[in-house]
């Protein structure tokens, strides 16, 4: 049976991606991450073509379940699925049976019963994606769960950085902002450490999780100290929706100490790049000037996002659980 398949591919070395779900970057080895980033290169090239679509996932149904507002991630996953010719259904908590009290598990089992092949989930509760992965037989991709993880964001950040810097190992990165509520920070921190990067985190003490240094990062409370000599600065959004309102006096006071300006960038390495997962609060996390400067990779991150999510869908699709 294997032999009627053309030789062009049978001779190709394959490296199976061992995971049946993509829940957290903590589960990924350096080889796993490199594999996904390498695959994403091909999809990045497709995004530059006149016809940005390939027939690979024809007939496959992908369900985007978004229990939390999202523009970038949802449209990025939708576009990624559509560029692979999959049928993509967007399901959001508002205007659905969730309002009628249906549980997450029941909703997902119903969606699975419709013949969905892949489920992408964004949920305000940490662990929601893992919960679904446990109960469903189709692959689950975590598109952000509470304050826990956002693996595709970390992967696209690494992809963008690798493009800008030519490699990852040894890079020095500062992650600045609301570290304690940020799944982006956590997923990036874990993935960056796995890839041999040096990470500093910087925030007011009230926005730093307890024992954050256990992740193997350097903790700074002054922005000047955090950015000194770094190759990349990742600014995080202040998540007003996840604060109790007692973590800092007001936005202006936060911005006075933690808003990235040209003055800070001058302390970093000469070719330092600035990243932000979006949406930006201009004047809070970074100045207008820096958001639009040549050093800003913010829009490259968005472009990379589609390529990386295409790679994730391509690699995860068809994985069957026992």
């Amino acid at each position, binding site marked *: 049976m294997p032999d*009627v398949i053309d030789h*062009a*591919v049978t001779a190709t070395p394959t490296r199976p991606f061992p995971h049946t779900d993509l829940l957290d970057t903590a589960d990924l080895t350096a080889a796993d991450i490199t594999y996904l980033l390498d695959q994403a290169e*091909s999809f990045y090239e497709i995004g530059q*073509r006149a016809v940005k*679509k390939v027939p*690979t996932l024809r007939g496959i149904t992908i369900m985007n379940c978004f229990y939390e507002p999202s523009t970038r991630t949802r449209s990025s996953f939708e576009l990624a699925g559509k560029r692979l010719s999959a049928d993509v259904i967007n399901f959001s908590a508002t205007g659905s049976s969730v309002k009628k009290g249906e549980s997450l598990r029941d909703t997902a089992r119903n969606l699975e019963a419709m013949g969905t092949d892949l489920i992408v989930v964004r949920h305000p509760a940490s662990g929601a994606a893992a919960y679904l992965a446990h109960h469903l037989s189709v692959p689950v991709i975590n598109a952000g769960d509470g304050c826990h993880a956002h693996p595709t964001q970390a992967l696209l950040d690494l992809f963008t950085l690798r493009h800008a810097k030519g490699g990852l190992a040894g890079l020095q990165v500062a992650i600045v902002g609301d570290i304690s509520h940020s799944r982006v920070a956590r997923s990036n921190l874990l993935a960056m450490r796995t890839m041999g990067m040096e990470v500093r985190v910087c925030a007011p003490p009230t926005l730093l999780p307890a024992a954050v240094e256990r992740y193997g990062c350097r903790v700074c409370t002054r922005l000047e100290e955090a950015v000194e000599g770094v190759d990349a600065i990742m600014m995080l959004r202040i998540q007003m929706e996840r604060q109790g309102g007692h973590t800092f006096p007001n936005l202006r006071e936060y911005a006075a100490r933690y808003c990235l300006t040209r003055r800070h960038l001058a302390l970093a390495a000469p070719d330092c790049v600035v990243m932000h997962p979006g949406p930006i609060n201009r004047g809070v996390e970074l100045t207008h000037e820096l958001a639009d400067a040549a050093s800003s990779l913010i829009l490259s991150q968005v472009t990379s996002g589609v390529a990386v999510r295409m790679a994730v869908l*391509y690699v995860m699709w068809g994985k069957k659980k026992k």
Partner: protein
Amino acid sequence: MTAPEPRIEIGRPLAGEAFGRTISRMAHEIIEAHDDLATAVVVGVRSRGSHLARRLAKRIAEIASIRVPVGTLDITLYRDDLRARSDYPDLVRTEIPIDLEGALVLLTDDVLYTGRSIRAALEGLMALGRPARIELAVLVDRGHRELPIRADYVGKNVPTSPAETIRVRFVEDGADEDAVCIMALPEGTRTG
């Protein structure tokens, strides 16, 4: 995942200098067929089609002093058998150095068999632009076509049984010499 069964070489219809002469002859045929190769690009189906593409471009440059650009096409995403596969072929970035709009594409692959790879390659090329013409050059035509596809330039016709496979080895991949090898399962282990 089904591990490929060990196969042994049972014949070597083309190797060494003869292999090189065959590529030279194909290069001559390509030059002869075209008054002008100014819009031409040689596109290899990776990975062994790419070796053939580079070899042909080199010979064309040596014979006619025409530099024809070389590109690589990864057809994985266009294959019709992906759903049946349990392993995932690694993707390699498709790189074609010129705009295919109005170009003469010389598509190359090492072996022409069912024609399904070439169908996938044609679909992939079309997504990149609208070439004026696509021609197919293969080192080996082993028969057993399942689609109405034929090659314009053939290095060697090698009749095979469907149970056999053809393995083309290039020195670029570390082979001792360039060779076209017929491979089969050892006696006694063959199943239907």
